[in-house]
């Protein structure tokens, strides 16, 4: 007979309990009850949730509708770019940076080439620097347009997303004429840029820049005094100034908390030292503050675009140093030395001296830095990518804990994470 009486079951249970207690006492351990009342709920948000901007997974512990714990989990889009870089020459790694922050590939191209140039100890010619500044500011506007649109969509204003997409589309048309691709630009090169911009494209940029403020006003007039929009944005996801600095946040996420840190002003690179612009900050430190910083920065970028178009000089677009910089195409076809250096450069790569360099730029999301360890060959010994989205996502749990479950989408939108960059 395998059937046991109630009494027998009880006694077995009692014996089991006694054994467990004895074991615990013996090992001198303690038992912690995370949820003694059993009313908490663990909710998985993502990695396939539309409001997580990609493949971000957020594990939430809820007490009713209040978030009491928030753990962002990264790595679903990990493609191993840092390791991949070790097996590619510096030149070959440029297209891979398009796929880091895929909303502003132009900025990433500029960042990697500035880092390589810093490692090689050289500076690109004047016109190349102006063009790089121009395209990174256009990339900033396109990235902020997307951030603005998706934040609005997260809180329910779908119209704005469609409108900002139209503006972004116009910018991508411009990118396509500049470099030949809308999204994966691969435009910057070591010692300059891939090709020159002609005057028709510059005129097109100017025409767009003149129309854009009107459109931006149109977007903001619809939602910025809308009561529902403000109620969903203001006072949510608070990030105090000190905590933001402690966590190492950068970009609009940091400036929304009232810290005026902007590498374009603090460590002027390219031609930013010669341009007139302000660093936009907000003191609120909430979702509204971070959102408003992005909207204000678009106007500042536009101001810079106008200045660049007015002041851009003519001249060479790539340095004339055949052993590190790709020669001109016409020279490759006709001259023997250039042909040889073309072959040498592609096969062995431009080799920086042994040593370590760190170069960072202010990308639309924050400080994007490349830490290059060179062993004197054409391949980096180690390349560390300091991507702003990874750092900014560290602040997510602090912002989310204590707020309502419905606010988490607005908070994620205000951090503006790009998972391609966060997971690398």
């Amino acid at each position, binding site marked *: 007979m395998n059937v046991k009486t109630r009494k027998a079951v009880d006694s077995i249970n009692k014996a089991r309990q006694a054994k467990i207690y004895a074991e615990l006492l013996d090992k001198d351990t303690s038992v912690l009850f995370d949820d003694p009342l059993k009313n908490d709920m663990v909710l998985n948000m993502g990695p396939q949730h539309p409001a997580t901007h990609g493949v971000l997974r957020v594990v939430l512990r809820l007490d009713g509708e209040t978030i009491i714990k928030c753990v962002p989990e990264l790595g679903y889009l990990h493609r191993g770019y840092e390791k991949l870089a070790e097996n590619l020459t510096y030149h070959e790694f440029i297209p891979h940076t398009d796929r880091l922050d895929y909303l502003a590939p132009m900025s990433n191209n500029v960042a990697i080439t500035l880092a390589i140039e810093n490692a090689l100890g050289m500076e690109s010619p004047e016109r190349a620097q102006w063009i790089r500044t121009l395209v990174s500011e256009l990339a900033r506007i396109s990235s902020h347009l997307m951030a603005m649109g998706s934040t609005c969509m997260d809180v329910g204003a779908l119209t704005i997303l469609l409108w900002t997409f139209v503006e972004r589309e116009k910018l991508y048309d411009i990118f396509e004429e500049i470099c030949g691709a809308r999204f994966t630009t691969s435009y910057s090169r070591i010692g300059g840029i891939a090709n020159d911009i002609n005057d028709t494209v510059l005129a097109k940029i100017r025409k767009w820049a003149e129309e854009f403020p009107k459109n931006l006003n149109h977007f903001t007039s619809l939602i910025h005094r809308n*009561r529902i929009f403000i109620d969903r944005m203001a006072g949510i996801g608070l990030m105090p100034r000190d905590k933001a600095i402690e966590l190492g946040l950068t970009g609009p996420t940091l400036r929304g908390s009232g810290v005026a840190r902007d590498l374009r002003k603090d460590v002027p690179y390219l031609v930013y030292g010669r341009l007139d612009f302000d660093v936009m900050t907000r003191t*609120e430190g909430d979702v509204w503050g971070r959102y408003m910083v992005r909207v204000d920065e678009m106007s500042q970028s536009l101001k810079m675009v106008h200045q660049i178009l007015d002041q851009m000089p003519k001249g060479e677009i790539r340095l004339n140093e055949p052993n590190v910089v790709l020669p001109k195409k016409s020279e490759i076809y006709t001259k023997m030395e250039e042909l040889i250096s073309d072959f040498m450069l592609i096969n062995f790569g431009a080799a920086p001296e042994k040593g370590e360099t760190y170069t960072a730029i202010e990308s639309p999301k924050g400080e994007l830095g490349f830490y290059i360890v060179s062993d004197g060959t054409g391949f980096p010994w180690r390349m560390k990518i300091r991507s702003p989205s990874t750092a900014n996502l560290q602040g997510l749990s602090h912002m989310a804990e204590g707020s309502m479950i419905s606010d988490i989408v607005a908070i994620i939108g205000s951090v503006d994470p790009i998972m391609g960059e966060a997971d690398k």
Partner: protein
Amino acid sequence: MNNTKNTEAERLNFMEKLYLPEIAKGLGLTMKYMFKPKFTRQYPEERFEPTGSYRGRPVLVDTTGGERCVACGLCSRVCPALAIEVQASETEREKERYPVKFEINMLRCIFCGFCEEVCPEEAIVMSKEYDIVFTSQEEAILGKEDLLVPEEQLQDRLEYLAEYK
């Protein structure tokens, strides 16, 4: 963390707090946009015509004397996605080398244009083709006969390269 004070909402005036005018404003916009010209394109009927700067499918330039390619293998070396395979052989023509086998795996190609940029003979260029469709993986590996395109069809790109690259 939640901020209990919603300062932005306190700044709203009475009309904005009422919210009713906002609904009217929104509906007015909907009406306005109904009669505005559309930004989107009716794709298969209305095709997108790229300019010379466009980086489409990489092709081999076909001149009257055969392909320009001398099978130096530089494009295959620089390709970040390892999409190109070249095998060289000798020939009786003026340029003594030619590719016996030239394959581009279009499933690997990322359209970066590096092959075109390093080519010392202007033999591989990016065309304007962007609607590339395959029904199987084997079909996506383009051989020499698929890649060769007459020079006349690539004039836009060749002119662009000569002027701006």
